[in-house]
């Protein structure tokens, strides 16, 4: 290794572990001396470069990170809270929607579905009877009353008619029970005057205080029922 190249290499890295560089130092004391000189220079440079580090820097770095991650956590938990709130609101709206909105668009469809739902709960052979007085007691809620009984009343109970508090009357019919619903007026359901499917037929009448819907099988004369309801019912307001 010639002197120039040796110097270049030592200048570039006085602590070089390069074999050629080490060998050259071994062979030539002046090169070794030169290398030592550069190592000393490096020592001086190192001391000069080791400028004092602010004493509190380390603490600041840790503190700042702690604050930053704390904020991050706070931020995250806020996000979770917001998420939870959103989910709760959506759940609330959904429940509300399912419970109080109609899945049926008109009175007829709903009345049919209601009757089918309660199929088997009542039969024409049921012995129980409800008196006119207790029926009228229940009719108070609708500000109406019947002047005389429409027929043999098997059951009279409040029920939820598509989310509305309604009165569900079950009368003994010709072949099967006749269902009469007293339903508060509702804007959600379209009024359907007559409706039927394969087995059942129905009619609605629009009274002042409520809609009254009669649902019965095809053997029953719905119009006769409607007529007798119209004749017998009176509204207090």
């Amino acid at each position, binding site marked *: 290794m010639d002197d120039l190249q040796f110097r270049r290499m030592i200048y570039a890295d006085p602590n070089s572990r390069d074999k050629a560089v080490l060998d050259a130092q071994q062979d030539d004391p002046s090169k070794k001396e030169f290398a030592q000189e550069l190592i000393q220079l490096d020592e001086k*440079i190192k001391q000069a470069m080791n400028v004092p580090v602010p004493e509190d*820097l380390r603490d600041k770095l840790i503190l700042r990170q702690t604050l930053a991650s704390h904020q991050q956590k706070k931020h995250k938990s806020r996000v979770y809270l917001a998420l939870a709130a959103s989910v709760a609101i959506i759940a609330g709206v959904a429940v509300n929607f399912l419970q109080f909105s109609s899945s049926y668009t008109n009175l007829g469809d709903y009345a049919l579905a209601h009757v089918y739902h309660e199929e088997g709960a009542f039969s024409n052979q049921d012995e129980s009877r409800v008196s006119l007085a207790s029926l009228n007691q229940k009719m108070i809620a609708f500000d109406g009353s019947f002047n005389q009984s429409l027929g043999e009343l098997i059951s009279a109970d409040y029920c939820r008619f598509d989310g509305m508090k309604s009165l569900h009357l079950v009368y003994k019919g010709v072949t099967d029970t006749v269902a009469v619903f007293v339903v508060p007026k509702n804007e959600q359901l379209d009024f359907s005057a007559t409706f039927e499917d394969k087995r059942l037929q129905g009619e609605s009448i629009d009274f002042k205080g409520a809609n009254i819907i009669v649902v019965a099988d095809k053997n029953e004369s719905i119009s006769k029922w409607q007529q007798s309801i119209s004749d017998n019912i009176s509204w207090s307001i």
Partner: protein
Amino acid sequence: MSPLVSNNMATKQKRYEALVKALHADLYRYAYWLTHDKQVSEDLVQETFLRAWRALDSLKDEKAAKSWLITILRRENARRFERKRFDMSEYEEANVMDTQSTSTEQEIENHWLREKIAQLPPEYSEPLVLQIIGGFSGEDIAAMLNLNKNTVMTRLFRARNQLKEALEEQPATRGQYNG
């Protein structure tokens, strides 16, 4: 927060604190020789460690931590110039660290040498700082600075050469300086 997550957080916290402890001084000095400004250096180091904290999971090999941090710091420094077109102030005497209050012979020489280092062109001083403070090899420095190794070795050669020459002239100028 589940125990697993908070456990990970605790581990991350420990790793971070170990990094700070082991490397903050080197990083600060590197920043200082890059910027010649104490306050800017401190800010750079803080910004660097904050970014390091956020990206800590991407650091797989602790041995690579120092060059990883230096890379972040260099990027932060470059960003500083993008943000605000500093007049790329060449070295100013006022900026050089004043340690003369201690005034020992050694400190005076250090101070003098600091000025000489600060006067080196940045492309010479940066590899030198990385080599001497960082303890990086020529290959490491070349990788960090995106240069080829020969260029790095040439710059190291020139940097030491200039400092050595300055030191050899020193006795003449030193008295004057101290006066």
